[in-house]
């Protein structure tokens, strides 16, 4: 979808067009689900939370300001949804821990890679994992990630650098970009 087409779809979705909102969901679902999968380490929980994030976005469409980046906006909603769930449910937290351990048993086309992604990302602290998921996996700039996560720019840069180094260390490779 071109930026003009997206802006037009956003305008119509703000006026209540569910067809246009469905187009926006289709366009951004991969980014939102990917981000949440990397945070949660569990596909089913991540997809459920992604649906909740899109539902919240649908309710808040009127609040969306023109000129704002829609993908960054919906990622911010997803991040806050995840934070709310994490803070409110200690039991869920325990289940997430189990999820990291259970990752090898999940069905996937490439079980070995899935195991690596879930286990490796699970080694990072939450904020660091989120910054890495946005900047390294999602292609967001440090500034965009800082806006989404509500963290200072310097903190995000630090999280990304440390997270990258830690991941590469865990994967057995040195960071040759430095």
């Amino acid at each position, binding site marked *: 979808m071109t930026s003009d087409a997206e802006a037009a779809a956003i305008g119509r979705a703000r006026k*209540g067009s*569910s067809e246009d*909102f*469905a187009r926006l*969901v*289709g366009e951004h*679902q*991969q980014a939102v*689900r*990917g981000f949440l*999968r*990397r945070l949660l380490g569990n596909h089913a929980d991540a*997809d459920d939370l*992604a*649906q*909740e994030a*899109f*539902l919240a976005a*649908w*309710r808040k469409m009127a609040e969306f300001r023109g000129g704002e980046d829609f993908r960054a906006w919906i990622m911010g909603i997803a991040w806050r949804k995840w934070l709310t769930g994490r803070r409110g449910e200690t039991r869920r937290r325990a289940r997430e821990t189990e999820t990291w351990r259970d990752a090898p048993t999940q069905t996937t086309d*490439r079980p070995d*890679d*899935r195991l*690596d*992604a*879930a286990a*490796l990302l699970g080694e990072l602290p939450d904020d660091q994992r989120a910054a890495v998921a946005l900047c*390294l*996996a999602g292609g967001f700039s440090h500034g965009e990630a800082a806006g989404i996560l509500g963290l200072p720019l310097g903190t995000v840069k630090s999280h990304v650098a440390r997270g*990258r180094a830690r*991941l*590469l260390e865990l*994967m057995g*490779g*040195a*960071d*040759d*970009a430095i």
Partner: protein
Amino acid sequence: MTQSDTLLDRLWASDAPPARDPAFVIAVMERTARASAAREWLNLGLATLAGGALAWAGAPILSDVASRATGGLDSPQLVMASVIVASLAGLYALAGGARELGFGLRD
């Protein structure tokens, strides 16, 4: 692209959702439709209660007005009740309920 970048790209690719997933989009739209319908039904219920309470409170006046307005009809209350229900339905339709219920009046 460095070897580290390639390694990380492989990691992200292993965990990426599909670029196109109609089933996920449908699931989201089902949830939005259910939420919208629930909200509309709640609004309709509240409007009905409010309308009923108003009609009950204003019954003596309304009854008197209805008697004068309907002249020789046997049941002026029935006429007034119909007017009230029609007014509420009209207001609800104007407020967007008709679209949510699929009457197609707005789209």
